[in-house]
């Protein structure tokens, strides 16, 4: 059952019904017992009374047989009791009108039940050996059941009338009680898709408040994610549109320039702009790829030195001019990582080092292996990163005070993302021995 109201209604109605049923059974059993004991006492008393009046000579009045065949009307309370007086030698001395001819009980003194002509009789027998008579007083069990049924009917009839009323009351109460939920549902369904304002908890009952609290927390998280995404999109737009604006302006200059040097300079600037835009697009694609990377990447045993050498060999011309030394121990050191992502991280760290390098300077790759961890360092002789910016430079499009002309603000953030996906961590710190940055790739072996 999907409706909370329907479910509560069924539960409440079933529980109420069950309680009524139990009460009715109780009343039935109690009433039956009570009726029996009262009527038994009546039989007993009547028998003794008759016995005290009767004698073996009889009181006469043996009705004709024709009378006995007619079953007395059950509701005829005047004829509820039937009485027979028998002599001890087995002769019917007398009987009340309506009493059967057949002997009501063969038992001795006391209570007994007997079936006569399809009807069960409850009989009390009293004997007086002095008088030589036996008095049998009986009533029909059917009559007793009828009493009980009447009483139960009397109890059930008003209940049956109140059932619909109670059902209505339960339904109405549920409607009223569940109203806050309905109000909440309506408010949520009226919302715009981008409306992330918190839901009012003011008049809501305590039970719903945690739900609303969680909902509001979810709204907050979604809004944060949306805001972050919008910020990234805005940055990406800026980062792409600015070089495009530069290209367009330079192209217009090249077309409008009347002298050759101006035109040549503009065309050269266009080349620089195209190169820079190309790199930016490549970086954006790398970020997009990292963002959509699956949790578990195929990983292999890779030589770190091999990866670094591969990156160095494939560097674009301006970066290739910077001298590089690679610790020979790196070549023999294997890590389990995704090759593509490790290449991406190493390339971006190396390019970042090269871009910030003054002339002359060198990039040094080295490593340190301890039990449980492996650290790969890349040191440069650049200006380093101001301490207050170290935590920020891995954010997308963040370009610090010591930015390079060609930077996109994406390189370190790509390296960071790619290393995380490879189970490593990027730690940036300024070198303690000289100016420059030490970027550390840290693997913790479990």
């Amino acid at each position, binding site marked *: 059952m999907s409706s909370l109201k329907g479910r509560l209604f069924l539960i409440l109605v079933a529980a109420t019904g069950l309680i009524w049923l139990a009460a009715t059974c109780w009343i039935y059993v109690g009433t039956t017992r009570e009726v029996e004991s009262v009527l038994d006492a009546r039989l007993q008393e009547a028998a003794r009374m008759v016995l005290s009046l009767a004698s073996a000579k009889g009181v006469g009045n043996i009705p004709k047989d024709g009378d006995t065949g007619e079953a007395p009307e059950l509701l005829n309370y005047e004829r509820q009791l039937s009485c027979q007086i028998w002599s001890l030698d087995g002769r019917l001395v007398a009987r009340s009108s309506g009493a059967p001819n057949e002997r009501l009980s063969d038992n001795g003194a006391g209570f007994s039940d007997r079936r006569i002509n399809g009807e069960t009789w409850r009989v009390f027998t009293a004997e007086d050996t002095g008088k030589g008579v036996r008095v049998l007083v009986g009533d029909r069990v059917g009559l007793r059941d009828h009493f009980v049924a009447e009483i139960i009917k009397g109890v059930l009839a008003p209940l049956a009338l109140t059932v619909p009323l109670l059902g209505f009351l339960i339904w109405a109460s549920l409607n009223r009680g569940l109203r806050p939920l309905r109000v909440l549902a309506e408010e949520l369904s009226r919302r715009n898709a981008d409306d992330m304002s918190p839901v009012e908890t003011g008049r809501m009952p305590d039970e719903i408040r945690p739900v609303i609290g969680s909902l509001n927390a979810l709204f907050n998280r979604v809004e944060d994610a949306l805001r972050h995404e919008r910020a990234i999109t805005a940055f990406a737009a800026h*980062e792409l549109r600015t070089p495009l604006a530069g290209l367009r302006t330079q192209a217009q200059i090249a077309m*409008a320039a009347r002298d050759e040097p101006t035109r040549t300079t503009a065309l050269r600037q266009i080349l620089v702009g195209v190169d820079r835009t190309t790199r930016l697009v490549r970086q954006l694609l790398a970020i997009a790829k990292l963002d959509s990377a699956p949790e578990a990447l195929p990983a292999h045993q890779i030589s770190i030195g091999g990866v670094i050498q591969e990156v160095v060999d494939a560097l674009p011309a301006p970066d290739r001019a910077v001298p590089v030394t690679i610790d020979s121990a790196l070549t023999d050191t294997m890590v389990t990582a995704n090759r593509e992502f490790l290449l991406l991280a190493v390339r971006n760290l190396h390019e970042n080092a090269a871009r910030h390098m003054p002339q002359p300077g060198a990039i040094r790759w080295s490593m340190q292996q301890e039990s449980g961890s492996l650290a790969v360092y890349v040191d440069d002789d650049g200006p380093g990163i101001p301490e207050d910016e170290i935590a920020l430079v891995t954010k997308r499009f963040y370009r610090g005070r010591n930015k390079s002309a060609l930077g996109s603000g994406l390189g370190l953030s790509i390296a960071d993302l790619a290393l995380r996906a490879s189970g490593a961590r990027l730690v940036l710190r300024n070198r303690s021995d000289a100016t420059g940055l030490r970027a550390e790739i840290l693997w913790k072996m479990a």
Partner: protein
Amino acid sequence: MRILVVEDDPVLSDGLKVGLGLYGATLDIVASCADGHAALAADDFDALVLDLMLPDGSGLELLAALRARGDRTPVLLLTALDDVADRIRGLDAGADDYLGKPFDLEELAARVRAISRRQEGRASPQASYNGVTLNPARLTVTVNGTDIGLSRREFAVLAALMNRPGTVLSKGDLEAKLYGWQEEVESNTVEVHVHKLRVKIGRTKIETLRGIGYRMRPVAS
């Protein structure tokens, strides 16, 4: 016309320097909010072209600080953030105009001319005074209906004098309109340009106030 550009992209700022230069403007370029503050404190500019996303903060903060201290320099925001909401925010922060990247160089030049001429209290695109008519969009000058050919520098000196006719501009004021920071100021150059201008547009049009500076000669005298 002297323009300050705050833009951190090297290719674009070079394009602006050369491109707006083709339209007769003298440009100074800075790449950060901090340098922008310093430049605005040091010099007067006829217009400011401002990028919004700068490495050390938002151009809007620079704009707000500028307006807060009562600086009325016309500002054109030049940015990739050109949603309607961004434009509104920029204009409400005190900008005079807004142009989204990428843009057309001619349009940018026209918009910069427009905001700076409104700053001078002129709605007409042409400046006319005492028979001299100057058209900044076409870089042309006519005297009593006759076209006069002027060099870029001569035009800049005349435009500065015609902006507020009657106001005296010192030699230093005129040099500031002619040269950006990186440019070497040649000695006597203002005198040379004024002399050539007098030859071309008429001896009496420009008046020298000895020891003070130059102005367009008032019509009445």
